[in-house]
């Protein structure tokens, strides 16, 4: 440490402003202050960073949470598109396909309106329904209920398959034939068995074909009657047998066509909810957190991308600043 004498000497002999300098400085200080800073600058940038960084983080996290809340919905189900009409699918009358039906239809117990068969024409009516049920118990109940209802309306079960190969997972397939005038009741009843995943209806008009067959049968009967009335010769016996065989075939074929037009074919596919769907339909909080996490991840990706792009420039700027500081330090190391 310095001796007190040296310290005192330094303080006593400290430089004092000359009257000329004092006058110059006071002249400067007496000037009117400018209303505004002449140049743009970043005052107190550290203080600004203390505010800006938390605000940016809050905006990022808040935005992610709001997005998560908005997209998670209230009942765990996202809105499905309304049923749409598709074009003709190779059928005589047409086909209606309803890939997805809003669950609200099921929850509100509103009947799903199927296309009604014609009461004046012969039509082969086919319907396909794919439903999702809650679990194996619901699958069993729905299968039994579908079979029972088909019988109750005067129909029958043509095919049934029930399987539950995985624990908690299962499916069932049914094909029932029901009177065509009750097919709408059947479809409505089946649509209440679970969540409709898809639905398809085919209608083939066979009126003209049946009428053609009837005319052909009448012609054959007339020919056979004519041959039998004139006495059957040996040469005509073979021709008569041929006509009889053709008549039998057409009669049976017509009867089958009419019978098919009287009974609609309804195919029903039932399946339990897949496991991943069960995991996905967790609480709203989990969904919100999951969505918010996704948004945050996306934001982190954007930030990383920006850093990769701006990184070299930032490094260059840092190097320039460091070099400037080093140069300033050297300036102060001189005597």
């Amino acid at each position, binding site marked *: 440490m310095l001796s007190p004498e*040296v310290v005192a000497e330094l303080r006593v002999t400290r430089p004092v402003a000359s009257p000329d300098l004092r006058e110059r400085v006071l002249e400067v200080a007496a000037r009117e202050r400018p209303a505004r800073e002449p140049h743009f600058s970043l005052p107190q940038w550290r203080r600004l960073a203390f505010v800006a960084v938390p605000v940016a983080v809050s905006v990022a996290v808040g935005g992610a949470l709001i997005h998560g809340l908005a997209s998670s919905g209230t009942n765990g189900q996202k809105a499905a598109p309304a049923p749409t009409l598709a074009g003709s699918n190779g059928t005589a009358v047409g086909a209606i396909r309803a890939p997805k039906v809003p669950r609200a239809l099921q929850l509100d117990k509103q009947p799903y309106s199927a296309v009604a068969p014609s009461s004046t024409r012969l039509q082969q009516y086919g319907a396909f329904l794919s439903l999702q049920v809650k679990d194996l118990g619901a699958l069993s109940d729905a299968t039994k209920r579908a079979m029972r209802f088909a019988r109750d309306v005067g129909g029958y079960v043509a095919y049934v398959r029930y399987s539950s190969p995985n624990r908690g997972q299962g499916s069932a397939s049914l094909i029932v034939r029901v009177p065509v005038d009750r097919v709408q009741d059947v479809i409505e009843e089946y649509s209440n068995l679970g969540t409709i995943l898809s639905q398809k209806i085919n209608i083939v008009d066979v009126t003209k074909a049946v009428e053609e067959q009837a005319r052909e049968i009448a012609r054959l009967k007339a020919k056979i009657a004519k041959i039998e009335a004139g006495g059957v010769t040996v040469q005509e016996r073979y021709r008569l047998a041929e006509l009889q065989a053709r008549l039998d075939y057409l009669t049976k074929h017509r009867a089958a066509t009419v019978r098919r037009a009287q009974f609609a074919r309804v195919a029903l596919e039932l399946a339990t909810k897949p496991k991943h769907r069960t995991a996905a339909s967790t609480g709203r909080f989990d969904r919100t957190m999951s969505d918010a996490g996704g948004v945050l991840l996306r934001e982190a990706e954007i930030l990383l991308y920006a850093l990769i792009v701006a990184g070299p420039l930032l490094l260059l700027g840092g190097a320039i600043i460091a070099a400037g500081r080093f140069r300033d330090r050297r300036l102060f*190391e001189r005597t």
Partner: protein
Amino acid sequence: MAAIAEQHLDDVLAYLVYLTADHTLAEDLTVDTFERALRRWRRFDPRRGSARAWLCQLARSAALDHFRSEARRLRREDRYAVRELREVHPPSFGEGLSPELEHGLAELSRAEREVVALRVVLELDGETTAKVLGISQSACSTRLSRALQKLEGMVSADAVA
């Protein structure tokens, strides 16, 4: 502003004289310092430090700008070999200083002289001095200790001689 200038003019000048070792240059930089203070007066926040410390920071900034331009000028002159034409002023730190002390101060670096000026001559505290210099308090203490030791050694050696 005028009152503050009147109150701290001698402090600013003393600091700049010790920093530059040139009384004439220190006077010019003092005027420049108060010009800067007038321009930046709206930025001055008394809660963040005293007016004296703020003026010392501005004085240091003015001196740094001068040193930079001077370094550029010297490099330019070196390039065109006009070194011999340079005007060299002998260091002067104040009237009445003993030759030993004057010599000792002249031997110190600018960084060492400014810490002596702030801590010993202006009697600023360690925290304010560190803030003016833009370094930590421990670094400031180390620099002051080294400067005083060096100054004491040179003053003693000159006295013996």
